[in-house]
């Protein structure tokens, strides 16, 4: 019987299966961070359990760390305790940690791939919903809750039920100025935030294959915004080349053997998908979100919806509520939306290619004077690379702040946040109410679109700044 890539990874990790289909799945790679792990370690201690395979877990502090000068430590007491608790737990249980002062520190979903910890065909979990990012390598990667983090630490397995197979095909070529961020925003707009519930999505088609590894990560990253647990892509030469020589990648003969195994990770011809959706790349236009859910997307040429044209009462109410929160009038043109802040960063768009894309637009241009703009690289290594390429100078010259790596204003747990009613063009992944600060208004965009917004002072079409 032909199998999908998801089926194959699933079958390869079955430790035990109950009659009702509940399975115990082996976990090859476990990433942890300071916010969702303390209670898991506390649980282990309370029941006198240990970490079964410390070497399969990697820890990094990211959500809560300051992105300004770190030499004085963390001033927020609670954040400090959380980061210190992670350090103490890793020490006690023998887990490798990239602490705040480590060059390799960064957002967990940037660090994992960068270190070669993320590998094709593996099951990867993390107490964070954007774990789907790692699916770009052809792994089954998904977010879990803290009780499950504890379960993985104690048993190196997870209790799971098989999800459905959902394939999204994107074929064709992207027009100039259109990126993988626009592709995924378009997909979420199409399937809705619950469109993938109960499914694992495989992204396929020649457009997906043509994307770089980092662009693929942007797509898989936002799978959760479409409600699916995991998103993955068949691994290929690009993936193997990316991983070759990374610190935690296999070496020597083992490398050759690994590549041989990885090369067979694909969905068989004729394998069954419960759901299938197709998009044409040529039709995709730079996207922005207007509301408070990632499915609230319009093109940069479009306008904000009008609740009066919506017949479904629930939908009408929800549009009205979003417009009110966002401080927008119905039918406003996307390009007429004035912004106060720009945030470039996050596990969606905080990697080197994202920074290059934004820098390309910003080169020799200044941000609008009323806009406050910042770049937060996804990891210390991304920051270092960007500085070697002189990207930091481009950002600083156009008036951006150049920060230390972390999650920062993606979720505003540290000092980086929006004030009430402040409006931000953000390369992150969630525009929920209060996500970037209480009362803050988020418009999700690609890095190039964020750069264009910074220059124009309003949401704008990146294509007009393309050379």
């Amino acid at each position, binding site marked *: 019987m032909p199998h999908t890539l998801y089926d194959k990874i699933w079958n390869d990790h079955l430790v035990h299966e109950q009659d009702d289909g509940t399975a115990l799945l082996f976990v090859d790679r476990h990433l942890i961070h300071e916010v969702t792990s303390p209670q898991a370690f506390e649980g282990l201690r309370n029941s006198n359990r240990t970490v079964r395979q410390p070497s399969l877990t990697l820890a990094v502090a990211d959500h809560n760390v300051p992105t300004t000068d770190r030499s004085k430590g963390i001033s927020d007491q609670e954040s400090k305790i959380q980061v210190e608790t992670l350090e103490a737990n890793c020490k006690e249980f023998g887990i490798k940690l990239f602490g705040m002062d480590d060059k390799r520190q960064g957002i967990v979903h940037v660090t994992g791939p960068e270190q070669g910890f993320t590998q094709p065909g593996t099951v990867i979990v993390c107490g964070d919903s954007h774990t789907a990012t790692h699916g770009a390598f052809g792994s089954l990667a998904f977010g879990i809750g803290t009780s499950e983090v504890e379960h993985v630490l104690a*048993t190196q*397995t997870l209790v799971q039920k098989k999800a459905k197979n959902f394939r999204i095909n994107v074929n064709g070529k992207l027009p100039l100025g259109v990126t993988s961020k626009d592709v995924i925003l378009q997909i979420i707009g199409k399937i809705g935030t619950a469109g993938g519930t109960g499914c694992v999505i495989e992204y396929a088609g020649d457009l997906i294959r043509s994307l770089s590894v980092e662009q693929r990560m942007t797509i898989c990253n936002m799978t959760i915004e479409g409600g699916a647990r995991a998103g993955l892509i068949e691994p290929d030469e690009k993936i193997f080349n990316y991983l070759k020589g990374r610190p*935690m990648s*296999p070496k020597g003969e083992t490398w050759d053997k690994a590549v041989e195994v990885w090369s067979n990770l694909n969905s068989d011809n004729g394998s069954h998908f419960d759901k299938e959706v197709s998009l044409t790349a040529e039709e995709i236009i730079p996207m922005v979100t207007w509301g408070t859910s990632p499915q609230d997307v319009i093109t940069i040429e479009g306008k904000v919806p009008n609740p009066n044209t919506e017949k479904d009462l629930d939908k009408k109410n929800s549009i009205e509520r979003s417009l009110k929160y966002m401080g927008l009038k119905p039918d406003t043109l996307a390009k007429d939306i004035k912004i106060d802040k720009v945030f470039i960063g996050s596990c969606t768009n905080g990697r080197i290619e994202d920074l290059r894309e934004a820098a390309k637009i910003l080169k020799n241009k200044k941000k609008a004077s009323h806009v406050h703009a910042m770049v937060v690289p996804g990891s210390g290594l991304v920051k270092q690379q960007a500085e070697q390429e002189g990207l930091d100078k481009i950002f600083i010259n156009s008036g951006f702040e150049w920060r230390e790596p972390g999650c920062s204003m993606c979720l505003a747990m540290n000092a980086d946040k929006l004030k009430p009613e402040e409006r931000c063009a953000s390369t992150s992944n969630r525009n929920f109410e209060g996500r970037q600060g209480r009362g803050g208004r988020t418009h999700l965009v690609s890095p190039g679109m964020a750069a264009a917004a910074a220059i124009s002072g309003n949401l704008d079409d990146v294509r007009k700044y393309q050379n």
Partner: protein
Amino acid sequence: MQKFISLKSIPTYLPLVNIDTDMIIPKQFLKTIKRTGLGKNLFFELRYDEKGKEIPDFILNKKPFCNSNILITGKNFGCGSSREHAPWALLDFGITCIISSSYADIFYNNCFKNGILPIVLNEDKIKEISEYSNRKEEISVNLADQKIIYGNNEISFEIDPFKKKCLLEGLDDIALSLEKSEKIKSFENKIKNQRPWIFND
């Protein structure tokens, strides 16, 4: 884990769709290293104004709903982040049963780890039951029979048998999985042979 067997309460009806985990418990409360004490911050931005004062109109600030154990709500409840702080906050507030037409996957799973029963019903039934919230009348939930009883009516709901058993008996699923230690061990040995790079440290 606390067991869930049955429950009788006046339900709270919060007719919003896509309630995300940031709404259930905003990030400033994720800095805790404990599971408890989050109830006072549940639905923080809906419940309190900018100065931290209770918003009297918000349903959970009103009697009898502030003592409610059942939350009826719009579809796709709990979408967004994986934070288990969301079910912890609900539990700490006293909510142990949620009724919606759909949930986000991770949130749904997280409920079961904390003795919370998330029930799925279709939207028509939800509208019907929500009347009991409007009228401030009690409804009952019985997990063993998989039934909700309201007035003279009752309705059954579906639930995965294994999840049901865990809730009814308050089972610790780590202990259950550890009973399979031998199987895990032989699986690990198999990996060491077939995919040696996994343990390549």
